[in-house]
């Protein structure tokens, strides 16, 4: 048994750390947040050059052939750096669906560009009524005479839709609103006629959009995998998405408890450092313990997923539950112990907390996963 990083893994971690040290001061980040795009194309290119965008792509299709452990390492560091580039949704989630379901032609068409940073994908799965249920799909795709499909419906909170070149869209090709059978995935180029993108900034400074499909015609090549049986792939994408998000959150929580511990040592009130108050010491110990719990659960779920994906779903539910709950606990206390300073946008604290809150509502919040875990 061994939880040490391998040499390649350590090199990966160091290189992400270095990138963040060089490119991600809070000032720089906040000016990216305010830009139209919401992240930096230069950074995106750099990530491609460093080989990170190919990490999870199999070697057979020109990738690095890494697994969830590699993306976990990267995401933890991305969390600490509050990285904005759409690695999570484009490479981890959409990239994986493409690798899982794409046929030869689809992979050849998209993967090289995905890996080189020339294109960016997103995954449109949620709908206004669906809340966190992946199978609750009303958006319809109907076959037309020429073998293509006509898509109608609205997808919600589609991450980075405005900057994506194409989106993978879950559509109902048969069955009723809540049925797992009858859901298909389509890879839809964004510039098709009838696609309306209403983009906005989310609380964490990233971008999302409501995407309306009005009689959007796609040809047969847009269908990913078989018609009507995409649910298991969606579920798997959700699972690896959760692992990546929870790694990011764990990195964030580590920074939060450490930053707060050092703030209370520097901040003096009542003629002594705040950290000398026992109440504060115990609170920090609680934050630290809960962080360690998340770290352990992250490792457990990630390793189980890598070794036996089909047997890992309980751990993944437990992980998302724990990370959502702990994220609020650590974030709330980080702010509390910073006092007024914690309420400003001037320190990382606020930005970390906003990201944690957003992570909680991606792919199901803590209540949702607790209920699944208990079921």
């Amino acid at each position, binding site marked *: 048994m061994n939880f040490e990083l391998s040499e390649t893994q350590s090199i990966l971690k160091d290189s992400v750390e270095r990138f963040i040290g060089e490119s991600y001061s809070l000032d720089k980040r906040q000016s990216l947040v305010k830009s139209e795009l919401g992240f930096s194309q230069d950074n995106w290119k750099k990530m491609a050059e460093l080989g990170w965008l190919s990490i999870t792509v199999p070697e057979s299709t020109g990738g690095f052939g890494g697994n969830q452990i590699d993306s976990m390492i990267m995401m933890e560091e991305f969390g600490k750096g509050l990285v904005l580039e759409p690695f999570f949704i484009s490479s981890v989630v959409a990239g994986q669906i493409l690798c899982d379901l794409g046929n030869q032609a689809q992979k050849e068409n998209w993967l090289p560009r995905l890996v080189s940073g020339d294109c960016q994908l997103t995954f449109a799965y*949620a709908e*206004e*009524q669906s*809340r*966190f249920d992946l199978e609750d799909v009303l958006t319809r795709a109907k076959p037309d005479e020429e073998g293509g499909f006509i898509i109608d419906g609205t997808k*919600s*909170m589609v991450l980075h839709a405005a900057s994506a070149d194409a989106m993978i869209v879950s559509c109902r090709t048969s069955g009723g609103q*809540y049925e797992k059978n009858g859901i298909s995935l389509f890879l839809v180029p964004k510039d098709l006629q009838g696609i309306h993108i*209403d983009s*906005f*900034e*989310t*609380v*964490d400074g990233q971008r*999302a959009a*409501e995407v309306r499909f009005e009689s959007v015609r796609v040809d047969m090549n847009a269908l990913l995998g078989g018609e009507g049986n995409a649910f298991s792939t969606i579920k798997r994408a959700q699972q690896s998405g959760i692992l990546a998000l929870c790694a990011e959150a764990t990195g964030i929580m580590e920074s939060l408890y450490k930053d707060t511990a050092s703030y209370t040592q520097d901040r*003096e*009130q*009542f*003629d002594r450092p705040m950290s000398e*108050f026992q*109440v*504060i010491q115990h609170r920090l110990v609680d934050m630290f313990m809960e962080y360690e719990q998340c770290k352990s659960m992250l490792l457990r779920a990630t390793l189980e997923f890598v070794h036996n994906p089909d047997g890992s779903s309980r751990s993944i539910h437990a992980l998302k539950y724990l990370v959502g709950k702990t994220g*609020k606990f650590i974030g*709330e206390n980080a*702010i*509390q112990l910073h*006092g*007024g300073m*914690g*309420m*400003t*946008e*001037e320190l990382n604290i*606020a930005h970390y*907390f*906003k990201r944690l*809150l*957003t992570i909680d*509502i991606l792919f199901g*919040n803590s*209540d949702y996963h*607790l*209920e699944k875990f208990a079921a």
Partner: protein
Amino acid sequence: MDINLTQEELSFQAEVKEFLSENAHKPGTDYNEWRLNWFKVAASKGGWDVPKWPEAFGGPGWSPTQHYIWEQETSRAQTPWDLPFGLSMLAPVLMNYGSKEQQNRFLPDIRDRLVNWCQGYSEPNAGSDLANLKTKAALSEDGTHYLVNGTKVWTTLAHIADWMFCLTRTNDTGKKQEGITFLLIPMKQEGIEVKPIITLGGSHSVNMVHITDVKVPVENRIGEENKGWGYAKGLLAHERTGLAGISRSIVALESLKNQAGSVKRGNGSLMDEPTFKLKVAELEADLMAVEYTELRSLANAASGNEPGPESSILKLKGTEIQQRLQRLTMEAGGIYSSAWGMSNVGPSFARSGMSGYLSSRAFTIYGGASEVQKDVVAKNVLGLKK
């Protein structure tokens, strides 16, 4: 022990209800005009525009039960917005420690909502340890004015304020608490620089205020030099009792239930999902208890006693409950709770979920951080420290 309202109290309640419904804002009419007029009409009822002011200063002289009824009814009805700084924070200080001239000069404008005040207490190095404040006020040789220099921070609404009530340092030697002077400073003048601080809910309400060589006439000093701490402490007690917000939380709980009830899940709603429903139930049970904690504290005051131990936990419990309400509202909003200021996605309550929750984190920081409040309870109520 008896919780029933008396016949007089019931008829008072009916009168308040009638007043509030007759004077509610009519959609489409000018808000500001209605607002200022509302206070005039309330004044004509005999001090209903300043319910907390003592009778001697024009207040209605209500019993604690009447105050409770007023709180309950006004948190349900539409009443005009109001700010606490002049009305509930400075006014009691003026009444208790100000001179007749100062009372005549400042109270009428406060009452008519014509002048906005801000509270200049906290400084970068004087937060929880407020007595550590350093903003210096030096009395001129001829004794006509103070020269004030320093920096205040977290000053709520300083950017719209006409005046600041400000704690300044007039003596560096001896106990920190004994060298503090309470000054009233006009904001719209040279030497006062207000810089916005954006808080994490995304809004601008607090500021940094730099004060440079500002001359403040001695007539603007409340009470005696070096005695300001005592005046301010009395005022903090007023600030705290206003922060529990129990009646408002009861109303907020109702709307949370409606909002969550509007989120459809299968054949039911979010209110039928066990984890969410139980969290709402837990909150409601706590709120029912704290409502009675408040009643006990009011009854105590009504019989003319000093505030009992129960009153010291009202700010702590009250703010904690407000935060839990915000948190559940955010959770009810689901995927839309992170839609920052967007005007047309998802249900409208959901969009502001996260920003409301984030702003609510300040409730346990201002007006005395919860940890500091607990110190006070440990010391004064439980007698755990000397």
